[in-house]
C-alpha cells in the first residue's frame, strides 16, 4: 500500500473521508497560491489544525528575535503563519470518551507525527504538538478510521462538547447525560446553523447541580440534568465564559424537556449567528450578546427563533435509543480485597471512587501536566481491554478516568499502573494541578504556566505526606495569559500570566486569583489579589497555605476563610514578595520557570530620556493598581457602587499615566484623560494588544460613555473590576512596547 487512504479503504466513513480529501485539496491549492490566507487559516482551524508559538517565523533566543529560516520560504498557512512551522493538532474527543482502539491510534499518531506525547486538555480533547500541516490529512484519515473527527475542534464553531467523567456511573446524577451530549455533538457537527459564528461556542453537560464535574457555569451553553414529575429534562444556562472577563451563565430555561434540548440549542445557535458580534473578536462570544440584550430579551429572541424552526426528526430520534452510549463491563463486580497494601490504599483514597453500580469503581489515572507517552498509552489500552472495556474518559482536570473497574481487580489495576509509573496518588488534590500550555507552545502565552506548575509539583511531591488535609484538598490551576484556558478562575489558588517592567527589563509574573469555587459546577470565581514574580510563586503558595492554616476557624473552608478575612489580608501576606530584586542582585527573576532565556527580549536599553520618564509612568501604574485593590476591598465589604467607581477611577489613572508618558498635557479630569487617551493611544493603536487589538481600550471608552459604574450592582461591579484589571495589565504591556520602541529608536 502506498498511502493511508488506500490502506484504510472502507474503514474511513465516506463523509469523513470526503471531508479529509477536500481539506487535502485545499492544502494543495494553498501551496499553489489559490486560496487567501485568512480563508485557509479558518479552514484549517475548523479541522483542528492550530498554530503554535514561533509560527510567525521569529523566535527570541534570549538575546533578541531571530528568524527561523524554514525551507518553505514565503509560503504561509495563514496571516503571519509560516507553512513549515510546527503546529498543534487538536483532536476532539466528545465528552472525553475513548475506546482502547482509539487510544492505540492516538499513540501511533503521537509517535509518528508528533513527539510521542499525548496531552489531555481542559476540554477533554487530546492535543499533539509540533505537527507539520502536510501530515494532517493522513492523521485525520487514521482518526476517522476509528470514529474520531477533528472537524470543528478549533475555529469559530461548536467546540468539543464536554460532560462529567462520571456520567452514567455517578450516584448523585439525575440521569446519564452521555447520550444527550452525544446527540447534541452529532446534531451540531457541521450543522449549517453553526457555521456563521463570530467566535467559538462551548457546550457542557452536568448530571447534577452539586458536583463540579460539568462546570456548566462557565460555558456558552450548559445543561444540568433534572427530573420533574418523572420526566427527564435540563436546566439550561447560557452566556457563561472564562477568558479575559469571566461571566457566570444565566438561566435560559429552568426546565427544558429532553425532546426540546436539540431545538433549543439550534435556536440559540441561530440567534448567536444572527445577532452576535462579528467585527470585534474581543466581544464576539455569546456572553457579550446576552449582556448586551439582557437575559430576558435573549430568552424572548430564542423563543421566537424556536417557533421558526422547521421540525427535524433528529431532534427526538436519539431518544429511541438512549442506551447507545452505554458501556459494558468486561469483569464481574466485586469488593476490594480487605488485605490491600498500604500503597494501594494511599492511591485509592483520592484516585478510586465507587460507582452507583455496586462492586464497580472509577479509577482516575493522574497524568503529570496532562501528559502521557505513546508507550504508556498502548499499555493503558491493554489495561482497558483487560479490566474495564471501552470506557476511558479524558477529564477536564487533564487526567484519564477508567470506569467499570471491578473492586476485585482494583489492586491488580493499581499495580499495573505502578509498573507504568502512572500510579501517582492525590487526584483532585493540591498536587494534581491543571495548566494550559502557556509559553511552552501557545502563541498567546505570557508566562510559563507549565513551567510553574511543573516546579510546584516537584516541590509539593516532597512534602505531600506532611500537608494538613485542608491544604491537601486545595486546587491549583494556572493559565499563561488572561484567556484562562487553565480555568484558574475556578481554582482555590489560581494563576494567570502577566509581565512587568522593572528597571528597563521584563519580569515574568503571575496574578494570584484566590477563592474560586470548583464545586457546584464552578459556582463562583476568584478575584485577583495581585501580581507576584514567577520565581516567588512557590513562596506565595507557602505563605497563602500557612496563613490559611494559622488563621482558619474550626473546619472553615478556603473559600469561607477568604470571604471572612478578605483579600486585603492576603495582600499584606504577599506584599514582601511582590517586588523582584534588581537584575544585578538576582538575574534568575528575569527568566521564567523551565526556560533559561532572558524573559522576552533582553536587549532593551535604558536611555537617559527613558530613565527620567520611567519612574513617573511606573508610579502612575502603581497608583492605579492600588486604587483597584481598594475597589476590590469595597466589593468585599458589599459596597458595589463604590467598588465599580473605584475600578473606573483606576483605569483613568492608568490611562493618564500613559498619556503623560507621551508628553501630552492632561488634566486630572476623567473626561480630559479619556479624550486624550482616545486620541493619542487608542486611535493611534499604540494601546492595541497584538492579539486582542483594541479590546482593552474599549473597556475604558465604553465605561466612560455609558457610566455603567454609577449605581452598580454586584454583577456590574465584578465586571467593572475584571475589566479594570485587564485594562491595567494592558497599560503595563503598552508601556513595555513604548519603552522598547524608544530603545530601538535610540539605537
Amino acid at each position, binding site marked *: 500500500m502506498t498511502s493511508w487512504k488506500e490502506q484504510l479503504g472502507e474503514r474511513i466513513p465516506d463523509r469523513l473521508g470526503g471531508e479529509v480529501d477536500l481539506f487535502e485539496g485545499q492544502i494543495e491549492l494553498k501551496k499553489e497560491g489559490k486560496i487567501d490566507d485568512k480563508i485557509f487559516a479558518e479552514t484549517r482551524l475548523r479541522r483542528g489544525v492550530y498554530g503554535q508559538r514561533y509560527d510567525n517565523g521569529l*523566535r527570541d533566543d534570549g538575546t533578541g528575535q531571530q528568524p527561523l529560516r*524554514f525551507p518553505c520560504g514565503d509560503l504561509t498557512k495563514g496571516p503571519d503563519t509560516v507553512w513549515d512551522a*510546527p503546529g498543534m493538532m487538536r483532536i476532539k474527543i466528545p465528552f472525553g470518551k475513548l475506546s482502547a482502539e482509539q487510544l492505540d491510534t492516538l499513540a501511533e499518531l503521537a509517535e*509518528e507525527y508528533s513527539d510521542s*506525547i499525548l496531552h489531555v486538555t481542559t476540554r477533554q480533547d487530546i492535543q499533539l504538538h*509540533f505537527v507539520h500541516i502536510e501530515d494532517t490529512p493522513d492523521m485525520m484519515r487514521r482518526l476517522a478510521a476509528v470514529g474520531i473527527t477533528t472537524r470543528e475542534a478549533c475555529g469559530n464553531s461548536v467546540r468539543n462538547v464536554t460532560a462529567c467523567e462520571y456520567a452514567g456511573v455517578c450516584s448523585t446524577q439525575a440521569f446519564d447525560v452521555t447520550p444527550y451530549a452525544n446527540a447534541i455533538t452529532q446534531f451540531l457537527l457541521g450543522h449549517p446553523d453553526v457555521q456563521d459564528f463570530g467566535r467559538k461556542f462551548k457546550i457542557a453537560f452536568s448530571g447534577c447541580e452539586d458536583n463540579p464535574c460539568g462546570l456548566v457555569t462557565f460555558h456558552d451553553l450548559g445543561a444540568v440534568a433534572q427530573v420533574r414529575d418523572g420526566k427527564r429534562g435540563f436546566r439550561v444556562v447560557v452566556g457563561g465564559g472564562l477568558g479575559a472577563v469571566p461571566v457566570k451563565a444565566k438561566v435560559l430555561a429552568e426546565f427544558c424537556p429532553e425532546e426540546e434540548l436539540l431545538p433549543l440549542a439550534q435556536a440559540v445557535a441561530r440567534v448567536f449567528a444572527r445577532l452576535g458580534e462579528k467585527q470585534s473578536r474581543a466581544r464576539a462570544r455569546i456572553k457579550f450578546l446576552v449582556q448586551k440584550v439582557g437575559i430576558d430579551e435573549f430568552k424572548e429572541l430564542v423563543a421566537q427563533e424556536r417557533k421558526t424552526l422547521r421540525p427535524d426528526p433528529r431532534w427526538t430520534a436519539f431518544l429511541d435509543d438512549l442506551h447507545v452510549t452505554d458501556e459494558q463491563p468486561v469483569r464481574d463486580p466485586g469488593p476490594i480485597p480487605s488485605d490491600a497494601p498500604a500503597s494501594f490504599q494511599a492511591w485509592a483514597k483520592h484516585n478510586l471512587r465507587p460507582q452507583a453500580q455496586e462492586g464497580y469503581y472509577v479509577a482516575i489515572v493522574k497524568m*503529570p501536566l496532562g501528559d502521557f507517552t505513546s*508507550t504508556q498509552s498502548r499499555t493503558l489500552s491493554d489495561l482497558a481491554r483487560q479490566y474495564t472495556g471501552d470506557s476511558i474518559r479524558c477529564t477536564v482536570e487533564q487526567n484519564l478516568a477508567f470506569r467499570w473497574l471491578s473492586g476485585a481487580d482494583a489492586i491488580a489495576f493499581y499495580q499495573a499502573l505502578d509498573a507504568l509509573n502512572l500510579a501517582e496518588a492525590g487526584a483532585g488534590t493540591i498536587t494534581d494541578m491543571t495548566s494550559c500550555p502557556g509559553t511552552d*507552545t501557545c502563541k498567546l502565552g505570557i508566562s510559563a504556566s507549565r513551567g510553574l506548575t511543573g516546579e510546584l509539583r516537584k516541590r509539593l511531591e516532597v512534602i505531600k505526606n506532611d500537608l494538613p488535609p485542608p491544604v491537601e484538598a486545595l486546587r491549583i490551576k494556572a493559565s499563561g495569559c488572561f484567556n484562562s484556558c487553565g480555568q484558574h478562575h475556578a481554582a482555590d489558588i489560581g494563576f494567570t500570566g502577566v509581565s512587568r517592567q522593572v528597571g528597563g527589563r521584563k519580569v515574568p509574573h503571575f496574578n494570584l486569583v484566590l477563592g474560586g469555587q470548583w464545586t457546584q459546577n464552578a459556582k463562583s470565581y476568584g478575584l485577583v489579589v495581585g501580581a507576584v514574580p514567577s520565581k516567588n510563586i512557590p513562596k506565595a503558595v507557602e505563605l497563602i497555605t500557612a496563613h490559611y492554616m494559622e488563621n482558619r476557624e474550626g473546619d472553615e473552608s478556603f473559600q469561607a476563610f477568604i470571604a471572612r478575612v478578605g483579600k486585603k489580608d492576603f495582600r499584606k501576606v504577599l506584599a514582601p514578595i511582590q517586588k523582584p530584586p534588581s537584575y544585578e542582585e538576582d538575574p534568575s527573576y528575569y527568566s521564567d520557570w523551565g526556560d533559561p532565556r532572558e524573559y522576552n527580549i533582553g536587549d532593551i536599553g535604558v536611555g537617559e530620556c527613558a530613565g527620567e520618564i520611567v519612574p513617573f509612568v511606573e508610579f502612575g501604574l502603581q497608583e492605579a493598581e492600588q486604587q483597584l485593590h481598594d475597589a476590590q476591598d469595597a466589593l468585599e465589604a458589599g459596597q458595589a457602587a463604590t467598588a465599580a467607581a473605584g475600578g473606573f477611577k483606576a483605569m483613568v489613572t492608568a490611562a493618564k499615566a500613559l498619556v503623560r508618558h507621551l508628553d501630552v498635557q492632561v488634566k486630572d479630569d476623567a473626561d480630559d484623560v479619556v479624550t486624550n487617551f482616545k486620541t493619542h493611544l487608542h486611535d493611534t493603536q499604540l494601546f492595541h494588544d497584538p492579539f486582542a487589538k483594541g479590546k482593552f481600550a474599549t473597556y475604558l471608552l465604553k465605561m466612560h460613555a455609558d457610566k455603567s459604574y454609577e449605581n452598580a450592582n454586584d454583577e456590574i461591579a465584578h465586571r467593572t473590576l475584571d475589566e479594570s484589571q485587564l485594562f491595567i495589565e494592558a497599560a503595563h504591556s503598552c508601556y513595555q512596547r513604548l519603552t522598547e520602541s524608544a530603545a530601538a529608536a535610540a539605537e
Partner: protein
Amino acid sequence: MTMKPTKFQVKLYTSAGEIELEKLVPVFHRWIREKKIPDELLIDVADYAHVPQGPGVVLIGHQSDYYLDVADDRPGLLYSRKRGFDGDFQTGIEDAFRRALRACQLLESEADLGFSFATDEVLFRVQDRLAAPNDDATYDAYKGPLEKAAGSFFGGSASLERIGSSRDPFAVRIATGANGSVGDALARR
C-alpha cells in the same frame, strides 16, 4: 512495503553520568542560539522531564528532533528524522547513525552534563507503520542495510534483533560488538 529513507530513529545509550534532565534545557536552548548543528534548522526545546520514562527533553528541529530520552529507564540520545532527507535508502540509514553520533559527541563535550555514551548497542526504529510495519518482511528488508551501516561505524559484525509487537513501530536492537567512543565511530567514517 516502501523503502523510504525517512522517519528513522537512532538511539545510543548513556554509559556514565547522573542524568539530570533539567540541565539539558539550557544546553539545548544554547545549541539553538549558537546553531550547534549547522545543517539543521533548530526551533525549540520541549521539556517533558515530568513524564516518567518519557521523551525527556527534546530539541525540536524542522528536519529532525533530538531527545535526551529516558524511555524504559534507559537514558540515551534519540535522533529522530521527521522529513526532508534527499538520498537513497542506505545513505539515509547511515546519515541517521551519523547525526545521532554527532549529537552524542556534542553532549559529551558539554562538561557540566558529564555525559558519555556507549557504542556497544544501538536502537533503530522506523516511525512509519505504513512504509515499515513491525513484521518479518520489514526486518528482512532492513537487516542488510542496518548491518552494513553498523559495520561502517562500529567495525566488526553486528548482531540484530527485531523487538516489539505489530502494534509497536518497527524496531531493531543492534549489538554492535564495539567498545570504542562515539568519536571513534565518527572517525571511522
